[in-house]
């Protein structure tokens, strides 16, 4: 399988202009991103696809990327539960997967 990649240039639309590099943490691991991009895009670019774990222990990630499906819920320290696809990355953010507060049962699918 291929890791996700960041394009320097879009084949049809030309070069991307990105904000300066910033660092935030996800599940305790540092992630490098560009200021202003969404947490969802930054995590995907870092190869992280599972953004939350459902009650049944299922991994869930970006689905619509436009705020409508609520599958991308993460917990941002100081801000609570957020949609990763609508939340701009900021330097020093501390982000964790959203897990069901009752705890999740092991993979029982």
């Amino acid at each position, binding site marked *: 399988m291929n890791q996700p990649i960041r394009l320097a240039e879009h084949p049809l639309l030309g070069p991307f202009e990105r904000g300066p590099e910033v660092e935030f943490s996800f599940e305790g691991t540092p992630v490098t991103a560009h200021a202003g991009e969404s947490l969802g895009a930054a995590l995907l670019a870092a190869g992280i696809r599972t953004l939350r774990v459902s009650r049944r222990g299922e991994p869930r990630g970006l*689905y619509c990327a436009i705020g*409508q499906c609520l599958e991308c819920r993460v917990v941002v320290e100081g801000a609570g539960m957020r949609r990763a696809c609508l939340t701009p990355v900021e330097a020093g953010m501390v982000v964790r997967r959203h897990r069901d507060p009752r705890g999740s049962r092991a993979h029982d699918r």
Partner: protein
Amino acid sequence: MTGDARLDVDLAVVGAGPAGLAAATAGARLGLTTVVFDEGMQPGGRLPGQVHHGDGRRWHSGRDDAERLTAAAGEAGVGIVTGTTVWGLEPAWDLFLDGAADGPRFCGARVVVLATGATEVPAPLPGWTLPGVMTPGGLQTMVNVHGVVPGGRALVAGLGPLGLEVAQVLSATGVDVVGVHAAWSGALGALPTPGGSLHELAHTVGRAAPTWLARWGSAIARRRALSTLAARLAPCRIAGVELRLDEVALELRGGDRVESAVIAPISGDGTPRRDAAREVDVDVVCLGAGLQPLIELTGSTGCGLIDVLGLSGPVPLHGDRQQTTVPGLYVAGGATGVEGSAVCERQGTVAGLAAAAYLRTPGATASAVAVARDELERARRAAPVRFDRHVIEGRREMQRRWEGACPTTM
């Protein structure tokens, strides 16, 4: 924006897509104090993710349209508040807001334009929640807005304009697109036959000249014997993408991400032939079942809704000034039926002018509204892509139903 808990304006617009920005600009130019709320990070709605086929062979980004419309709104004095969800709307008019800690919590307005756009219809195949499975809109956003390509081998499940667009974009970025297939809808009924799918495609994407889809689509639109042609065309390989009208995606599999897709031929009666299924390795799946209008916020307004063939789902009953059954509530764009962005923008202008006329704003004349409405009709006829091939009849039917329900309302 200030940290005031409450904001009061003449015109409040929900949604900063092409419809909402155009509506706000029209209102603000006539002197209304105007604010637009959007929960997205930037104004533009779905535009920044879109790749349009401009004149000739050039592509252009919806991002350019978003910038043009945002600049026009700014010049007209519109307040654009992003990162803010409108979670409630009550007549005469209160908007309830959830956004930045120092942003407003309520907005009072004399008139409201609802321009919340459209949303994707889920296609719940087994395995559809696996990470790596995304909607066409999700992939547009990742690849075209953020420049993040999520994997190396993709399957597109769901036949329609957006899936085809995404297949082409992914393929252009170097992703191996293993095929574009119908998505099995299980309990929702039998699949269209290959001939039926081809017919639908020809009438929706077939107008998107001058791309490969168009040349191919309009050629088939002229033919009669579609099923024979479909059988001959499927499988066919166009611009690096294999279109499989004869196969259906049945199931997606994986552990902590999608790893494979199960695909089967479609039998003559429109059911999958499970005995002949095959499994292909993929790390990205584009899964969509089309678009439907996003109209949740009308729920608390008492506005009448109606489902008319061609408009992609229930929408507020509305007249040709974009007015609804509730005085002071106007609608525009995808929330009134799914159409392309140029059409939505024109609808927004009509709604903004009509909202200003409702407030008896000088300059918001019947003739100004009529001119904007003519432009809307022109854009509709020229639209390169139709999300529903019955949309023109759908609009006519809506007007008939409006006149039947509200004969005296302007």
